[in-house]
């Protein structure tokens, strides 16, 4: 009886701030085809578990898509089958998904866009933006701090996309005029295997390398193996990016080979879901743009960004 009463009291409290009817929120994200996307899926599921437990009547539906086309199909299902009240989407690509998201908005749903902006920003109610230019810039500025003029660095890019271009642009802008020479920037496709091979070839090609910038932590880990195998880990350091658990742990422990990484957290999907839920459960306004910073992670602050269970 006591238990029933407390449940009733809790329900009454909830009803005080929240709307009485059920709320369905659709979450559309890329499938876990590489490390960062794996982290994205994990954090989305964590947010679902946490928020559904906290709010009665809240239903979060996550749909992972393997391509832009699949994502557009998933959006149609969100409207037709799930009849979502809100959509949280990390679009595969900006252009092709703008119209499908517009369709969802026209069904009356509240729209939250994450990371990659749509071509027409007027569709969205909330935009949670990652900073890819800042991602490259933070890494570049760290190198400018640590290296002398005349130092030689190599870069490792991801898959040729807008994200990759922005990160590279930020990095080049940061080291521009510092006297640091960028020897080469090959694509290692955000893959550990490819990064291992690209790094081996850099080591063959350049007798002297002072630092390596990898535009993702997975690539940093692959490159690290190649550097260790060649026995040249004393000669250079690596800066990664993204916020992979294995790299952050190393940074926290004071690893000299990867002394720093840049945060580009896959957990930004949780930020977006939280804000969207707040639209229905909170009495405060949430609409607007949220620019997430890409801060540098070093030994000093690494602990704060470490999630032991995250797959990325």
């Amino acid at each position, binding site marked *: 009886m006591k238990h029933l009463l407390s449940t009733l009291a809790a329900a009454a409290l909830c009803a005080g701030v929240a709307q009485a009817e059920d709320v369905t929120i659709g979450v559309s994200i890329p*499938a*876990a*085809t*590489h*490390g960062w*996307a*794996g*982290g994205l*899926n*994990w954090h989305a599921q964590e947010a679902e578990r946490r928020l559904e437990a906290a709010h009665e009547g809240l239903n979060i539906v996550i749909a992972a898509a393997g391509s832009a086309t699949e994502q557009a199909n998933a959006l149609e299902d969100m409207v037709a089958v799930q009849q979502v009240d809100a959509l949280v989407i990390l679009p595969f690509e900006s252009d092709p998904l703008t119209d499908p998201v517009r369709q969802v908005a026209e069904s009356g749903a509240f729209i939250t866009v994450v990371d990659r902006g749509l071509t027409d920003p007027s569709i969205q109610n909330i935009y949670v933006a990652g900073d890819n230019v800042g991602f490259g810039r933070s890494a570049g500025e760290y190198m400018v701090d640590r290296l002398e003029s005349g130092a030689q660095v190599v870069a490792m*890019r991801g898959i*040729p996309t807008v994200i990759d271009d922005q990160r590279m642009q930020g990095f080049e802008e940061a080291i521009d005029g510092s006297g640091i020479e960028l020897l*080469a*920037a*090959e*694509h290692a496709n*955000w*893959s*550990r*295997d490819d990064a*291992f*091979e*690209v790094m*081996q*070839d*850099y080591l*063959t*090609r350049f007798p002297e390398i002072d630092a390596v910038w990898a535009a993702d932590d*997975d690539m940093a*880990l*692959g490159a690290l*193996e190649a550097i260790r*195998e*060649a026995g040249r880990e004393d000669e250079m350091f690596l800066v990664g990016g993204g916020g992979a658990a*294995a790299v952050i742990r190393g940074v926290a422990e004071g690893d000299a080979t990867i002394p720093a990484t840049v945060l580009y957290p896959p957990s930004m999907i949780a930020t977006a879901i939280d804000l969207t839920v707040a639209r229905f459960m909170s009495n405060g306004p949430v609409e607007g743009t949220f620019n997430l910073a890409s801060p540098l992670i070093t030994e000093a602050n690494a602990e704060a960004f470490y999630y032991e269970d*995250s*797959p*990325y």
Partner: protein
Amino acid sequence: MTDITQAKPARPRFSLDWKLLGPLAALVLLLVIGAFLNENFLSSANLLNILTRSAFIGIIAIGATFVISSGGIDLSVGSMAAFTAGVMILLMNWMLGVTDVVWLIVLTGIAAGALIGTGAGLLNGLLITRGGIEAFIVTLGTMGIYRSLVTYLADGGTLSLDSDVRGLYRPVYYGDILGLPVPVILFALAALAGWIVLNNTAFGRHVQSVGANEDVARYSAINTDRVKVFAYMIQGACVALATIVYVPRLGSASATTGVLWELEAIAAVIIGGTLLKGGYGRIGGTVTGALILTLIGNILNLTDLISNYLNGAVQGVIIIAAVFLQRGLSRKQS
């Protein structure tokens, strides 16, 4: 290609095998280009890197030579490698909680890898022969299944081998015997074994007969189903061997492991002179094909001559040119 049946014991000519010399010519040409572009290209460290790297695709392609010679195709090898690697890592990490004997853990992991790979090949073979489903569809299906399974096992992220186990397992990729890296030695042994089986055993002749004309092979009292199942099992065993070498390299497996390896393996086989429609296989050519594919990537990484965005185009041109060289020369000869 119907002349390669049991009825005719020897090929009419094999004094000058242009199907093998064509790809070799392409290989030599690439080596010359590489040497011109970068002074370190011909260093032993770089050449050993190339050989070691080509071991994965090369070993898988040796198995693919059997499957393709028999008139089949296996699209599942890349996913199969990723899945095998994932299970091996999970098993070895789990065993660490049960026993302290690390060499036993590594051996069990390797044995499990061999079993899974060969078993997956058997499954493909049985579905194709007993199930009567086209090889393309069966292996397209298993490709998706294994890829999803490894993603599921890794929770979408990366499975990493415990560093204690990895320390002992490491030499299987990084070690060398008399200066030759272990993966290169295993690649050479696999190629030698594949060459002997394909060219000097009754089974090898049966594989090519089945690929040339399955009906004729059946009327010649060849158990065609069994030959095909064995071909897919050899493919599975080769995938297992490649995976056993792969796991200690980075000590990890993820959803991106082995992506597109199936196409690279098939490309290596065809560049090497084996016919995609079956009936004729060349292990030596396959080895050359695998080396050519690795060389292209290596040369592109060693130079800035070509925009990064065009890497795929360069690869495409060289693959087509290598096959043209091979076909063009052999056509002139006959």
